Each structure stands twice: as C-alpha cells, then as structure tokens.
C-alpha cells in the first residue's frame, strides 16, 4: 500500500471547532505522547535525511550533494524517468479512470455495475507492491499465461522486445492501481453533477458539447486536476512494485537512493542518496499543497 490513497475522502470541518475559542489550561498535556512519538520516530529519520544531505561526511555544511544530483547524468536521467513514469501513468490512469467512472455513473445509482466497479476499485487501488508485481510476471513474464496465449496465435512477445521486468512493465503495473484510484477520486464529483444543470443548459439551447464545455468541464476541472496530482504523487513515491519487478538497479530515483544508501556504489555517496531523498520530499510536498488548494475549489459546487 503506502499510497496517498488515504486522502481520497477528506473530512468535513467540525463547526464546533470554530465556535469554541481558547484552549483549556493544561488540556494540551493530552496530546504530548502523540506529539513526542511523531517527533522521535518521524522527526528522527527526517532529520537524518536533511542533515546528511546538507553536510559532508566530516560534518561541515555543503551544497555538493545537491549539485551532484543535478550535474551527474545518471541522477538526472533517473529523475527524468521518475517524472516521466509518474506523468504517463497518472495521465493514463486519469483518462481511463474518468472514462470508466463516467460509464458507471451514467448506468444509474442502483445498477449492479456500480456496486461491482465501486468495490472492485476500492480493493484494486490498494493492490500494489510485491503481489501485483508477481501477478504481472505470471501474466506477461517469459512463461506468463498471456505470453503463452499470444505465442499460440503467433505473437512472440519476447522477440518484440517487450520485457515485463523493465520500465515499460513498471508503467503497466502502475496503471493497474492508478485507474481504480482515479475512479475512487472522481466518482463523488461526477455524482455531484446535478441533472437539473443539464436540463437547464439544454433548455437554454445548449448542445451536449456546449453543456460539457461550459458546465460539466469547469465544475469537474478542479476535481480531475486534483485527482491527477494525487496519482502523480502516488506513482512518484512508489517503489515496492518496481523493486519486485525490476530490482534495485531500476533507473528511478528510489532505486538510486537504495543503491547509494546500501553502499552498492564504489565511493561513499550516502549524502547524494539523501539529497535525492530531500528532492523527492520537496516534489511530493509541492504536489500535496497544490492538491489541498484544488480540493477547496473542487468541493465548492459539490455540496
């Protein structure tokens, strides 16, 4: 799991929280254990990453680790691949996810299709990591079922250059959890489109395209964009699936971090791995803040 799917439902704000003013004296003691735990076990590793990224092994301040991640071709290429795989799989997941969600929502709220796709998406969005990788190897690996089946009809996957243990394979596996995640994220927004809006638009002489262009698209845009951002962050942070599929030498940022941290590279380049880690955090933090801002707009029409 380890996915950002958690954010799929945001909690409504408690109005009582705004009404009561002031914090009762001494009440903060109740959240001390929680705060301390987070400080030690989240703050500890986080501090090590940031400190290690900005210092030399001797402990003096340096920018070297970061400049290395920008100048060395292997890290640049890993970053490009990570960004590429995140963009491609979130666009594919977004496109097919919205399409699937539309097909399901138009089928009506009581249809069995709605229930099947809804619960299926709920499960498959969490189907990632090692089991997903092995399911894909069993399907499209050298001895996979689909590979054998295609072989019978004269299509040789191996000869065509396809390899499930490659970035293409990883992309395919990521799409497998990105589509259901998008279905989960976008269905509430699609359900929020009121039939009255369509009737009103048609009544005023709008065509189907006109309705989509001037009503549906603007209302849905923040939700779709927000969904795409979550999908992007989800793919960018993911590593378990590609680790199980390709291994530690995959040309993605997480793969390089693991190689550098585990000392599988000639020189002691821990700091560069940690700098790559800081960069990953920055990317995801930016994505999440943008998601939070969009989320506010997305819920405006959907009450």
């Amino acid at each position, binding site marked *: *799991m*380890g996915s950002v799917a*958690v*954010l799929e439902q945001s*909690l409504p704000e*408690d109005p009582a*929280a705004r009404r*009561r003013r002031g914090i009762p004296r001494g009440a903060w003691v*109740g*959240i001390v*254990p*929680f705060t301390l*735990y*987070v400080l030690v*076990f*989240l703050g*500890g*590793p*986080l501090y*090590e*990453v940031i400190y290690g990224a900005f210092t030399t092994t001797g402990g003096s301040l340096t920018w070297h680790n970061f400049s290395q991640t920008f100048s060395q071709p292997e890290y640049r290429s890993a970053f490009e691949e990570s960004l590429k795989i995140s963009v491609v799989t979130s666009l594919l997941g977004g496109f*097919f996810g919205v*399409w*699937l969600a539309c*097909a399901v929502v138009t089928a009506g709220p009581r249809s069995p*299709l709605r229930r099947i796709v809804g619960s299926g998406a709920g*499960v498959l969005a*969490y*189907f*990632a*990591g*090692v*089991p997903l990788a*092995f*399911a894909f*190897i*069993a*399907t499209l690996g050298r001895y*996979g*079922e*689909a590979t054998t089946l295609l072989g019978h009809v004269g299509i040789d996957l191996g000869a065509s250059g396809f390899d499930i243990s490659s970035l293409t394979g990883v992309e395919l596996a990521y799409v497998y959890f990105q*589509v*259901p995640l998008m279905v989960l994220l976008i269905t509430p927004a699609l359900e929020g489109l009121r039939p009255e809006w369509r009737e009103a638009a048609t009544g005023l002489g709008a065509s189907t395209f006109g309705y989509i262009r001037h009503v549906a698209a603007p209302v849905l845009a923040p939700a779709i964009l927000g969904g795409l951002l979550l999908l992007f962050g989800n793919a960018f*942070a*993911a590593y*378990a699936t590609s*680790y*199980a599929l390709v291994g530690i030498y995959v040309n993605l940022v*997480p793969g390089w*971090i*693991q190689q550098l*941290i*585990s000392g599988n590279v000639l020189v002691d380049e*821990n700091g560069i791995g*940690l700098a790559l*880690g800081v960069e*990953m*955090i920055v990317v*995801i933090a930016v994505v*999440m803040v943008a998601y939070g801002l969009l989320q506010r707009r997305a819920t405006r029409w959907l009450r």
Partner: protein
Amino acid sequence: MAILVLAAIFFLGPLISAIRFSLEQTNGKDGLGNYTQLLHNAALGGSLVTSLEIAALTTAIMLALMLPTVVWVRLRLPRLALLVESISVLPIVIPPIVMAAGLATLQSHASAGLSNLIFSSPLTALTPVYVILAMPFAYRSLDVGVRAIDLRTLVDAARSLGAGWTTVLGRVILPNVRTAVLTAASLTVALVLAEVVIAETLLYTTYPVELVDTGQAQLGVAVALSVLSLAITWMLLLAISFIGNRGASRARIGRLL
C-alpha cells in the same frame, strides 16, 4: 461500453493469470503444490511469523497512541483538531524509500547501546516506523468513528458514575467505536504485511522481503503466495465494509428509537 470490456480484460487478466500460474506444478500437473510450500519452506514460514509479530505489536501501539489522542482532541482541544490531523497526514509526504534512507543513516550512526536496543531485531526496529506509516489512515478512521458518537455525553455520564479515564476509554468509548478500531487495525495489518522497501533496505527478512527472494528461484510459489495475500487483503477489506454497513444500519436504527 467499450471501456467496460477493456477494463475487464486489463483488471481480471492478471488475476486469472496469477491463479492459473499458481496451480501449475513443477511436475507438469495442476495442483496445490505451490500453496503447500508455505508449510514446507522454513524461511517463508519464519518470515511470516516475524511479520505477524510486527503486525500485532504495531496495531497495539497504534491504538494505544491514537485512540486516546483522537478522543482527547475531540473532547478538550477541538480547536487543534485540524492541526493534529495535519500532523498525522505528514508521513504521506515522505516516500517509504526516503524513510528507509533516514533510518539506515540512523542505524549506521547509532551507538552500540542504541543498536542493541532497537536495531538488533526487526520487531524493535520496524514496529516504531510502521506505526508512523499507519498514522494517516488510522487517525482518519478513528476520528470518523469518534465523531459519530455522542462523545461528551458518554464521557460525562461515565465520569459522573465514578469511572476513571482508563475505564472511560476501555469500557465506554472503545465498544462504541469498534468499527473504526477494526478498520484502523485491518489497514495496519495489511500495511505491515505488504511493506517491503524499508525492511529490505535495513536488511530485515520480513515476509514480503522473503517473498521477493522466493520469486527468484521458485516463481510458482511466489505467485501462489501473492494470490493468497491478495485474497487475505480482499477478505479484510470486505469484512471492514460489511462491519461498516452493519454499524451504519445500527446507528440509523438507534436514531429512529
């Protein structure tokens, strides 16, 4: 409707393939040979025990830490609810591999005493960080549960009858938020049984790590176990939605009465 056919092929294909693949035995016949390996393979069995121990301990610490916090925040610090919730969501911003990198650095800098105390066994090394990873959804599901009950009345009633805070939490609130607790616990167990990145980087042989290793030599066994863990995750999630629905209908009935 084209999309439905496309989706069915893409999503059911790997599932059906994995099940078929897992039933093909090395002797050429079909059977459950790959599944029974779990019982014969000592390394896999041992790693599963390790992971289950970590799962149990992680769930216990998560509940002991989060439930009182959620209750306290809703009861006494509602103004801080948003802040505490934001803190609980923070782990999402840090990818597992970066968490692993931080822990590995901590591990290499740790003094001998700290090493013996924490990093000598997977149970003590991984449990604390898995609690952190579980925080975002654990906090949310517990918060949803606590908000659904009339917390203040329950607590005031229990307190005025002379109950201490432990009794209030354990015997008044806990039974009322059973569904939320079960949801949080199931998601935590599923997370621990699936987490491979941190365990692998810190060189601990947990179940998913062993599963990847098994796949190198015995692909059939690894696929069979993947099918098995998917089935278990599925049942956990199904159980949650079932319990959730029952809880919801009971709440409705309660309101009617």
